């Protein structure tokens, strides 16, 4: 009797400890991931420049207006002091695209490429920056000792790899000049396409299943299948998208039937259709739950006043279910945002610098971009990959946060 209680208590303690350990493990893994990403997104770099910007202009170049920059470039060219931008070179560049028509960013790029020639020769993690400054300084000394005569000294600077330029630049062959502009716009375009397709179909299906479908074998089968579809691995959807949308329906997804020539089927439309299939079960199931949670008394009140079924759904069921449907939509968006495998299969571009222009554009997405960068040999690509991961994580976490807040709000009002 006595020993029984002791052993039961011991078992309970062991169970509790195991559950605590697994929770702790999950938390530690998450924190480790975040720290790793942060570690690479910020840190010191060793920069070498042929000309220090302060030599060209006392005020920082980024703070100059377009016209001031133009005047500066003209003055430098006229002086003929710098080999990078002689009078002749200026004339050539001006005939390619008149300086008067170039944006501030474009002129800055010219100044950087022709004169400053900034180059990151080494980058360090946040940990090294904060706790191992000796290793940074050793590297700096080594580089400066080996430098050729006449070359300016390399310097140590702190750099946040997530910066304004990172968001506005397209990808390129030099890591510190590359950005996620194309990838972000591509992700947004694919998600917009996905939602435009999946939201009406998903909500429509949920309304049908909850409000119209009679209880019978066929509808039970449909319901079971939808639930199962939510568990199908995403690569399968990718294969489906490849065979159906990219290949079989190529003339449609490439825009050929609309008279748009020169594309293959690897377009935003194909990606959106594929992703729509993938998130459809999520949207349907969440919308169904939200519709089911609408109290029956509300429907009865409406019918009792002589409203038709459609009027009841439109005026009472949908408004009451809206927060739940939105929650599902946001969850679906965050899923679509993070999915990589199906996008690889459907054929997101690995190298693309032009913004998406419509449903028949080639595209890349943020996860694809990250994947490509992590595969590059150059050390600095690892930094911008980490920066892109940070951006992606922040987007995903905020989306999920909004979904949770909406769900809580819905619980409170019910």
């Amino acid at each position, binding site marked *: 009797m006595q020993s029984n209680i002791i052993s039961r208590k011991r078992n309970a303690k062991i169970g509790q400890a195991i559950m605590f350990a697994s929770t702790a493990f999950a938390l530690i893994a998450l924190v480790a991931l975040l720290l790793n990403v942060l570690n690479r997104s910020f840190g010191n770099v060793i920069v070498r420049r042929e000309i220090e910007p302060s030599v060209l202009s006392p005020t920082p170049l980024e703070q100059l207006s377009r016209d001031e920059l133009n005047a500066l470039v003209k003055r430098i060219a006229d002086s003929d002091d710098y080999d990078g931008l002689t009078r002749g070179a200026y004339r050539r560049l001006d005939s390619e695209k008149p300086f008067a028509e170039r944006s501030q960013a474009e002129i800055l790029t010219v100044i950087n490429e022709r004169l400053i020639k900034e180059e990151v020769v080494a980058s360090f993690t946040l940990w090294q920056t904060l706790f191992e400054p000796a290793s940074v300084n050793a590297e700096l000394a080594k580089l400066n000792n080996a430098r050729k005569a006449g070359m300016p000294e390399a310097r140590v600077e702190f750099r946040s790899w997530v910066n304004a330029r990172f968001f506005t630049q397209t990808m390129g062959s030099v890591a510190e000049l590359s950005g996620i502009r194309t990838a972000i716009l591509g992700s947004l375009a694919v998600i917009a396409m996905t939602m435009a397709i999946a939201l009406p179909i998903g909500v429509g299906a949920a309304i049908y299943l909850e409000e119209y479908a*009679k*209880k019978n074998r066929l509808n039970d089968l449909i319901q079971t299948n939808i639930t199962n579809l939510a568990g199908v691995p995403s690569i399968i959807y990718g294969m489906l998208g490849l065979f159906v949308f990219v290949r079989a329906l190529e003339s449609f997804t490439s825009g050929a039937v609309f008279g748009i020539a020169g594309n293959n089927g690897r377009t935003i439309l194909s990606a959106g259709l594929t992703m729509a299939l993938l998130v459809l079960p999520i949207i349907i199931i969440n919308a169904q739950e939200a519709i089911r949670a609408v*109290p029956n*008394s*509300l*429907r*009865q*009140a*409406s*019918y*009792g*006043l*002589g*409203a*038709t079924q459609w*009027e009841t759904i439109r*005026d*009472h069921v949908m408004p*009451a279910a809206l927060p739940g449907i939105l929650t599902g939509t946001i969850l679906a968006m965050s899923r679509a945002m993070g999915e990589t495998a199906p996008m690889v299969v459907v054929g997101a571009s690995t190298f693309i610098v032009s913004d998406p222009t419509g449903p028949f554009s080639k595209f890349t997405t943020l996860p694809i971009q990250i994947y490509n960068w992590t595969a590059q040999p150059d050390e600095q690509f690892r930094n911008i990959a980490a920066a892109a991961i940070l951006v992606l994580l922040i987007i995903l976490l905020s989306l999920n946060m909004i979904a949770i807040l909406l769900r809580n709000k819905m619980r409170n009002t019910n």
Partner: protein
Amino acid sequence: MLAENASIFYGAFRAVADVTLPVHERQITAIIGPSGCGKSTLLRAFNRMNDLVQSARVEGKILLDGDNIYAPDVDAVAVRRRVGMVFQRPNPFPKPIYDNVAYGVRLGNPRIPKPELDAIVEQSLRGAALWDEVKDKLKESGTALSGGQQQRLCIARAIAVQPDVLLMDEPCSALDPIATIKIEELMQTLKERYTIMIVTHNMQQAARASDYTVMMMMRPDRAGEMIEFDQTEQIFTNPRDKRTEDYVSGRFG
């Protein structure tokens, strides 16, 4: 209205058997009987609310102005416009008080001019003895009212579409005695214009507020049947059936 040999089924289960019941115009008819005997089922048959239950089926006839509301060419929606309903638990829409009352009116006439709609809303809220309490907060949500006010709002909402008949399924069971009295008084004024049927478990309420009373009881096969129908006074003072006497005097159920 008139029920003729009406039987109501849920699938194979007969919940109400063979009821023939004349409902007198501009009178209040109460339905009483022990729990589960089919009172709600019978009441809901009068405006085809049972249609919402997939398995439900009605045999026999229920006549409204001489026409069978279950005839194949009759639309349930049209029936419910003429036979309104108030439910056991107050169920206002989570919308402003004004919109609660205006909803049914707008369905019938989407382009109704605002002044006309305003007039109907005021008239209906006055009719439900609620106007003075809410006239300054018509924009506030109907769900923010007290239970008794909510139930009167539901009555206002029902009479706004000017039905002929009002069905009430235990409209006071979720209310306190004061709110209950208010609703009962309201029923007395409403009966000048509407035919009212009310299901109640409260014997005093049936005795106080109704003109006619239907006594229902479950048969051994669990189907509910009407065992007595008469003027309320008769039922409560001199019932013909022994079971009615036991029930109304509280010795039963």
